């Protein structure tokens, strides 16, 4: 262990302390103190991470693994510790989590000011940071799973924060149930790993895999697919994406932090972390890539017709996560993490800016009742513009670099790669379109609010917006080459870098596509804006209606078929089978059992005794007949019994 003075355990523990203080005492503390506690601990965590980053910059060799961490579980050959490890991948994740996390805490102080349960909100938010940093710092799968479950719990608590709204409670429950399905996959993968390797440490598993006498490909693929099931749950990919749009019931800063910037990227992080496994299974990688591309495409089509500003962003998040999965699937893990980082910047900004708009309009979320806000909310407008340009992939904004890297990586992966690249490119077109649609509907044209005077948000909310805007602009300038080289010790170097000519062509094409999306959005929504500005009263209503006619057409031709597939194929699996189906099934089984139980669980002592006698008879028959007939595992007993 070289220079251990990184205080790694403190990074998660500080926010946990904040959670304890606010959670236990918060209801009795003054608001200012609650805010101070909520802010200081994440800031201190961030300072530690920044210090670690600076030490790495100054030459500290990574990875730093805390081997002497206290043992958690020691049982026979199994040894699982509270081991934490800091490597390049973790460092990037930590910078994003604590950095963006702190900014969102800051923003929340303004946003949540008038809410009851202010302390509860910040206690949960700090708890989330604790689990999220644990997730990325963990040196083994089990501790990672602890963080994984923990962020799910925090997310559940925060989605259901407005507990008096029934929809919030339902959304929280939906998120929890769907994530349990994913966790189920993750746990099976953990048991399989433990069974096959006898360890859950990342480094030891990687060492096992490097050994020539490895496992059969089938087992590895099975493990990878189980891990992938977990990742699709947490990262809202097909088929488990259904919880994320509903999760928007939570407060907007929560959507920014948990359901955009950090928690939902845990699946991407997990695949990148376990890439040694995935690299050995081309089948699993292919599944990852196809799921990613399909999700990116599908979610973008849905985002194009949403009218709720947060739902547009929710589907957009699902779509962008799809890009990251696509990158993982073509082996470009560093590109996935790069996009994860830039996405955290601009998507957090988009949500926070949307939150600022909602805040300014006293809770209005329907974009049909917005418009013309650029005058009233200039700071929100300009920062949002930066984010829109970034997510659409305009040069030189952050999103351009990372999305370009993903598309280029896909392009170089043979024929299937070309197909995936095409899907990605079309998705980029749609992304640009729906983002500018949001931009025009919200900020351009004439105000469609009902005589409420919109107001700009307070500075405590605007400061994080401006910092994130700066990052959305400049976050990609480090460039894929340098970023990939930095991550190379963890994720390996992507195999092929195409020649510069092709790369340039691809980049230009990507920007052209983004511009095309803007143009389409402008020609539909922008003109109405300018018209309504100049011609004032005459036509806005009609134009608006026209615009919705365009929407209708699009809905009929594109969205309906896709939605049909989504609803009747994926949706049935997801919504019906998983959420309602499980509820119905449970109710049905419970009802059936109930009927059956009522007979036995009548409270009648004689029927209980009869039941016991019958059960005893069954057990005895099982023992005797099993032995005498020699079924299955009884064979050995027979040899003794029928001597």
């Amino acid at each position, binding site marked *: 262990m070289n220079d251990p003075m990184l205080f790694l355990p403190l990074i998660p523990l500080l926010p946990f302390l904040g959670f304890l203080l606010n959670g236990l005492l918060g*209801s009795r503390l003054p608001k200012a103190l609650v805010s101070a506690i909520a802010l200081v601990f994440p800031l201190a965590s961030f300072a530690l991470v920044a210090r670690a980053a600076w030490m790495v910059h100054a030459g500290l060799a990574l990875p730093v693994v805390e081997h002497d961490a206290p043992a958690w579980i*020691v049982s*026979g050959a199994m040894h699982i510790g509270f081991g934490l490890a800091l490597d390049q991948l973790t460092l990037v994740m930590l910078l994003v989590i604590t950095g963006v996390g702190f900014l969102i805490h800051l923003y929340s102080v303004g946003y949540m000011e008038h809410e009851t349960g202010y302390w509860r909100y910040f206690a949960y938010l700090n708890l989330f940071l604790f689990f999220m940093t644990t997730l990325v710092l963990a040196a083994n799968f089990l501790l990672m799973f602890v963080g994984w479950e923990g962020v799910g719990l925090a997310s559940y608590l925060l989605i259901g924060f407005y507990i008096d709204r029934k929809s919030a*409670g339902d959304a929280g429950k939906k998120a929890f149930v769907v994530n349990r399905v994913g966790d*189920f996959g993750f746990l099976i993968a953990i048991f399989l790993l433990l069974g096959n390797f006898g360890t859950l440490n990342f480094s030891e598993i990687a060492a096992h895999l490097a050994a020539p006498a490895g496992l059969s490909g089938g087992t590895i693929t099975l493990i990878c697919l189980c891990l992938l099931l977990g990742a699709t749950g947490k990262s809202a990919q097909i088929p488990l994406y259904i919880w994320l749009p509903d999760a928007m019931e939570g407060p907007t800063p929560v959507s920014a932090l948990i359901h955009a910037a950090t928690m939902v990227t845990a699946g991407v992080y997990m695949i990148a972390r376990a890439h040694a496994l995935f690299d050995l299974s081309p089948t699993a990688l292919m599944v990852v890539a196809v799921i990613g591309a399909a999700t990116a495409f599908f979610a973008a089509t849905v985002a194009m017709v949403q009218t709720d500003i947060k739902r547009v962003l929710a589907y957009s998040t699902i779509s962008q996560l799809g890009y990251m999965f696509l990158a993982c699937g073509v082996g470009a893990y560093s590109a996935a993490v790069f996009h994860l980082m830039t996405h955290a910047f601009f998507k957090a900004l988009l949500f926070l800016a949307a939150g600022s708009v909602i805040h300014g309009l006293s809770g209005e979320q329907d974009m049909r009742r917005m418009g013309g806000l650029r005058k009233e909310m200039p700071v929100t407008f300009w920062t949002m513009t930066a984010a829109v340009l970034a997510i659409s992939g305009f040069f030189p904004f952050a999103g351009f670099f990372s999305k370009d890297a993903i598309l280029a990586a896909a392009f170089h992966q043979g024929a299937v790669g070309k197909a995936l690249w095409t899907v990605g490119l079309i998705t980029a077109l749609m992304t640009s379109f729906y983002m500018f649609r949001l931009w025009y509907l919200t900020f351009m044209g004439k105000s469609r609010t009902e005589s409420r005077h919109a107001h700009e948000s307070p500075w405590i909310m605007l400061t994080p917006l401006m910092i994130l805007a700066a990052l959305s602009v400049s976050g990609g300038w480090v460039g894929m080459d340098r970023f990939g080289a930095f991550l190379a010790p963890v994720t390996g170097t992507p195999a092929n870098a195409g020649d510069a000519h092709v790369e340039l062509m691809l980049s230009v094409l990507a920007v052209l596509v983004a511009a095309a999306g803007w143009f389409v959005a402008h020609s539909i929504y922008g003109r109405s804006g300018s018209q309504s500005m100049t011609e004032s009263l005459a036509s806005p209503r009609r134009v608006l209606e026209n615009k919705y006619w365009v929407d209708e057409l699009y809905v009929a031709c594109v969205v309906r078929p896709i939605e049909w597939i989504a609803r009747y194929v994926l949706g049935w699996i997801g919504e019906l089978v998983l959420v309602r189906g499980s509820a119905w099934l449970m109710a049905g089984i419970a009802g059936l059992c109930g009927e059956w139980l009522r007979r036995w*669980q009548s409270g009648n002592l004689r029927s209980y005794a009869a039941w016991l006698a019958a059960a005893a008879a069954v057990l005895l028959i099982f023992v*005797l007949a099993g032995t005498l007939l020699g079924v299955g595992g009884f064979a050995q007993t027979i040899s*003794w*019994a029928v001597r």
Partner: protein
Amino acid sequence: MTPDIFRILPEVVLTLVGVLVMLTDASMSPKSSRRLLGWVAALGVLAALAASLWQGTLPAGTAFYGTVQTDAFSTFFHVLICGIVLVAILLSIDTLPPDRSPEQHHVGEYFALMVFGAVGMCLLTSAVELLVVFIALEISSISTYVLAGYRKQTGKGPEAAMKYFLLGSFATAFLLYGIAMVFGATGTTEVREIATLLPAARSHLFVLLAFGLMMVGVLFKVSAAPFHVWTPDVYEGAPTPVVALMSTAPKVAAFALLIRLLYGVFPLLHPLWMPLMWVVAAVSMTVGNLAALRQQNVKRMLAYSSIAHAGYLLTAFTGSGTEPIAAVGFYTAAYAAMNVGIFALLSVVGGYDERRSSVTDYRGVLYSSPLSGGLMLLFLISLIGIPFTGGFFAKFYSFTTAMQGGAGWLVLIGLLNSGIAAAYYLRLALSMALPSAASAKAQGLSSVGAGVVLAVGIAALATLALGILPGHVLDAAHAAAQSFAAIRGF
């Protein structure tokens, strides 16, 4: 040479304390408060706990003509059982009805019965002779039968006691028949001798029948399906502090007995009992969880939940070697901590008179008494099996053990089941978080008394400690398994 009496020191201490409590009760004026008796009993159990720990420092060995044996195994379960009984007594001091209520003159008996029950449970874990096993089981059972009917003035109390007694006797009869048949087949009732004589047994049919009959008896005691029918009715009828005890301590002792029978008496039948445990585990968790889903009464729901947990526990028996013993030992500890904890809070929040009994009655508890509500959440989280609680790690360890024994499908069933189980635990959690319509002030922890605070505190700390730093308990469980293996040569 250790004097024989030291091998049963905790039992001796407990018996003396029980007698002392009874005599003191008789000599007290009818009108004076009986709370003192509770503290006497608690101190006595604490002394027994210390005696058990001291026993752990003795070299392993037998006493009284080879009928009891103390080793790491017996110490582990002695400490666990004494701990549970201690918490249950502390809990009862403050949650039993106030003085001068109709039950007042039974409070002395109540504490004495708890202590006497502990004698039987402790003895059960160190007995290595089947008749002593049977007697110990009866001592523990009969005190529990009486305690179950403690609420005489309600209709449900005597009903629960009667059902428990009749069905329990029925099941114990199976065990006794089994013992008789083993004796018939081998000519002895000593565990070690049976194991060595079994391969040359006179009648194999007798051995198989004996095994089957004894399993019926024990599986009834651990309330595994399909021998679980008594559980919901009895839990519903018995007073909540008693349920805190009887859903944990007798079960822990019964699991110790199950280990003793499977690994001590019938290791030869391993190929037979492994599939049996597989099936019973799968049936128990599935039946328990599905039935719990439709329960409105919280105590009935938790009764079914305990059946499901018996299933998760039995899952470990499909592992190989002596690992299952350690896994079961650990699980019983974690299960006891969270189950005692949740029932302790139910007796505080729900009240002895059960003014809250259905899930919807718990609406708003999180706001009216945040500390009790928060701790209930902690125990629920542990019951669901979310990390950093004992419940998670116990389940993880049990399933890992099963996985290593090759019972992959059973683990799959177990994981599916724990997914289903989350639904009904969350229903209670969600109900507590909903704003309540009628703002009935729930009884808070602090207003009840020091005993309850101690009891809940111990349970909560144990639940957390078993999840965060399970090392010591895990070592003890391993030592228990090892000592067993060394003597049995399994």
